[in-house]
């Protein structure tokens, strides 16, 4: 099962290595990982999308992450109310004749063209991973020359539904 896990870490050299190293050592599969600074000085946040077999493995993963000295807080936010976004840059083969056709495809996705050349277009799209997947699928017939994705980043919404409304996952049940 896919889980979205965030880790707040000290912004110190070697932290990313420690985190990815432990994932590899304990045989966890990283789907995507994105890291960046936060509102606080010296603090970064990692958003990991991982594929874990079961709850026991998931618990082990969050515990192992928590154990790292430079990791301040680990949350599994998969089942919370969250905003999660990813950005993708897609370079599509396109002659001038096809441009408006492609424009028509990407418009409902609120994607934008950020670069145009004689025979290609670069498209920027932001959204949940499945939305990005959908756009990629639509563009594939035109010929994708290059694709770059940032990986998911996410945080909790300002308002969380009451606990009773959630099928929440507890570490200690």
């Amino acid at each position, binding site marked *: 099962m896919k889980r979205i896990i965030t880790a707040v870490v*000290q912004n110190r050299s*070697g932290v990313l290595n420690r985190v990815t190293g432990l994932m590899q050592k304990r045989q966890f599969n990283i789907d995507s990982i994105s890291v960046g600074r936060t509102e606080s000085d010296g603090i970064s946040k990692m958003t990991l999308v991982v594929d874990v077999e079961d709850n*026991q493995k998931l618990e*082990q993963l969050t*515990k192992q992450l*928590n*154990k790292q*000295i*430079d990791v301040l807080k680990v949350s599994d936010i998969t089942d919370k109310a969250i905003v999660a976004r990813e950005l993708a840059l897609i370079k599509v083969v396109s002659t001038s004749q096809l441009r408006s056709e492609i424009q028509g495809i990407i418009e409902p996705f609120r994607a934008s063209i950020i670069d145009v050349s004689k025979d290609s277009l670069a498209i920027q799209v932001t959204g949940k991973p499945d939305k990005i997947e959908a756009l990629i699928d639509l563009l594939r017939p035109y010929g994708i020359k290059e694709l770059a994705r940032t990986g998911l980043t996410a945080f909790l919404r300002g308002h969380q539904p009451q606990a009773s409304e959630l099928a929440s996952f507890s570490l200690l049940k």
Partner: protein
Amino acid sequence: MKVEAKPTQNTDMKPKTGADLLVQTLIEEKVETIFGYPGGAVLPIYDALYRAKDSFQHILTRHEQGAIHAAEGYARVSGKPGVVIATSGPGATNLITGIADAMMDSLPLVVFTGQVARGVIGTDAFQEADVMGLTTPITKQNYQVQSISDLPRIVKEAFHIASTGRPGPVVVDIPKDISANPCEDTYDNSFHLPGYQPTTKPSPLQIKKLSDAIAKSEKPIILAGAGVLFAKATENLIGFAEKHDLPVTTTLLGLGSFPGNHKLSLGMAGMHGTYTANMALYECDLLINIGARFDDRLTGNLQHFAPNATVAHIDIDPAEIGKNVSTQIPIVADANEALIQLVNHAKESPNHYEWHNTLNARKVDYPLWYNNPQSEMIPQWVMEAVHKVTKGEAIITTDVGQHQMWAAQYYTFNKPNRWVTSGGLGTMGFGFPAAIGAQLAEPDSTVVAVVGDGGFQMTLQELSVLQERGLPVKVIIVNNGALGMVRQWQESFYDKRYSESLLSVQPDFVKLADSYDIKGMKIETQEDLINVLPEVFAYDGPMVLDCRVLQQENVYPMIAPGKGLHEMIGVKP
């Protein structure tokens, strides 16, 4: 051209360097003993140590691996962090085995490695190795010092992290220009580790849950691991077990955490544990794990591990709880704190007469056993003989393999911190240097290095240190001319195809000892050993005993790989 040596500078005049700052911090941390080996990148540090040589004893081992295993032995016996210094590149890579060993067995170490100067890091400079990359997966934490003003803080953090919570090794990589350059007299060394706040007090709710479970249990058992030793909780463990009439088994590393001769003791559990202990783990309805990590050599096949038990697990490392065995009562705490709470919990618990009767009957009917034809030197008998002469009070260190299991089985440990062995990583060559560290930690105790002929040859260069320091370590080589455990597995599981496990050429260990000016003896009969042992332990100096034991002897009883606790083979018929 004539080169004139400049007169040496007055040391007081020299500006203070990063190395001096390091040394000053080590003094503040009350370090007394340092194990190390100099080299290019740590020359400034060794120069600073030279200036401060009255503050420390520095033990120059003859290989960096010897230094780090000695530091492990020191840490295991003293409870204080072992301190190691090695140079960059090969110096650092030679430490890797020991760092991994300390990580697996939770030993507090602070390891300083030299590094090439900051300006050339990453250029494949002479004796450069990526120490951070190499040590990240096998350290509790590691640092590369990037600025001299960080050095004192990092060293303080390193000692704090190594010795608190679940102990472990911490590496501090110091570029040569950091240690060589002049610096200010002092820097702010205060630190704050928001991501590292080990929980030591148990949750009262979980303690109550466990107390209730004990009150209901008919077949309870305590499994005591090395966490009890790190928490210095032996006394409270005895109190708790006695109050609730609970039988106690220990892991390999937990030997000595509960007296082996106590009436509630079932002996060691696991692959070569006692039949009684393993069957008790199999049949129990409540398993109270205190400071053990359910290693596979303990549990055997997990499907058959305590299948009917409620599992309670007390551990200071939350990540150990539920890792291998699903746990109903998790208690994250220091073992001693948890035991104090448990002892104070007023609840009376029933006597477990029936359970104890079963266990006691098994202790009598299926004890550890071996055939003892007096014409041969039987290794198990050697261990018992050593136990007798040392009154069970010696510190025993071992490598890994047959001799380790025999020492664990037949040298009954009745006190904590007498047992120094490589459990998790299973490192050959560990025992002898570890004995050096143990002896330095406790100069007045009897220290016996029980080693195999294979493992001893991996680190025997440290005989120089015994001689140089006059350490009265007694080395007992359980010499069967083979890599015994490998040979045993080949006999049992590979149709006696002894592939590369028989050592047909051996040095003459007596002459070898002699060449270091150490007394050596070759012992070939039981009578010889009985005659010589009192003399050996009365002698106030190092000694090497080459005990020629029966090669074909195997370690039993045993849980074969993949089998469950209840499927022991080689139990006394």
